[in-house]
């Protein structure tokens, strides 16, 4: 049962990611990315992170994808990739590099099984939203305040970028 609960979202996430990679139309890509985000949010629920499940859906699936769709439609840039890359070796290099990275990551984890113990206890709710909030507002208070500054800076930056210069 656990394997099934993990397997279905995992397969959906990989399918969404590959479809995003292969889709020629940027709007379709954004929607496949939405599928991927939703599948990953289900995995967060399996990993006992209900707070991040909600955050993932609201921020990624909600805000970020909508922003992407807005910009794609605003620019009318759905099909902006009809010509091949300027550098003809880029595609082959990308595949070789990606394959090497995947093999390397797999070897890293296979050769060091001790670093990742197998058993996962699914019973206790160590990461209830209240616990996350406690950690956020006590141990990590300073990063939390800095994050609010980051958001404020982004807000001001976007406003400045889109000012009309007369």
């Amino acid at each position, binding site marked *: 049962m656990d394997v099934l609960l993990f397997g279905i979202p995992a397969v959906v996430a990989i399918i969404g990611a590959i479809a*995003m990679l292969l889709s020629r139309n940027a709007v379709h890509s*954004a929607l496949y990315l939405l599928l991927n985000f939703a599948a990953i949010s289900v995995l967060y629920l399996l990993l006992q*992170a209900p707070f991040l499940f909600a955050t993932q859906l609201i921020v990624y699936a909600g805000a970020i994808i909508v922003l*992407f769709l807005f910009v794609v439609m605003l620019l009318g840039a759905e099909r*902006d990739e009809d010509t091949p890359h300027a550098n003809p070796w880029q595609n082959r290099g990308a595949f070789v590099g990606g394959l090497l990275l995947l093999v390397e990551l797999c070897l890293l984890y296979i050769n060091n099984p001790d670093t990742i*113990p197998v058993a996962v206890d699914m019973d206790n709710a160590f990461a209830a939203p209240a616990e*996350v909030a406690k950690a956020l507002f006590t141990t990590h208070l300073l990063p939390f305040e800095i994050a609010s500054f980051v958001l404020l800076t982004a807000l001001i930056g976007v406003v400045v970028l889109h000012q009309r210069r007369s």
Partner: protein
Amino acid sequence: MVSTLMYVALSAVLFVIGILGVTLRKSALMVFMSVELMLNAANLALVAFANQWKSVDAQVMVFFVITVAAAEVAVGLALLVMIFKRKKTTDIDLMNTLRG
């Protein structure tokens, strides 16, 4: 019982797909989406480790990653719109003004 290894392996696969997207696609929008995919893969690994060690610290870190990703997308897409206004394209191969 699904081991943490499975989650980390899924995270690695998604990360590699993201890297392929960054290198294969030409539209700056698609490169952006692939970067988001890679951030998500890293988040998934962090949440898996948080569950492994029963510690919320990694989840707090994922929260910060999501915050920074939101800010990054807002600024990045604003920049992209400005570039598009000037160059009428989102093709990253044509954004080579700084090339020597």
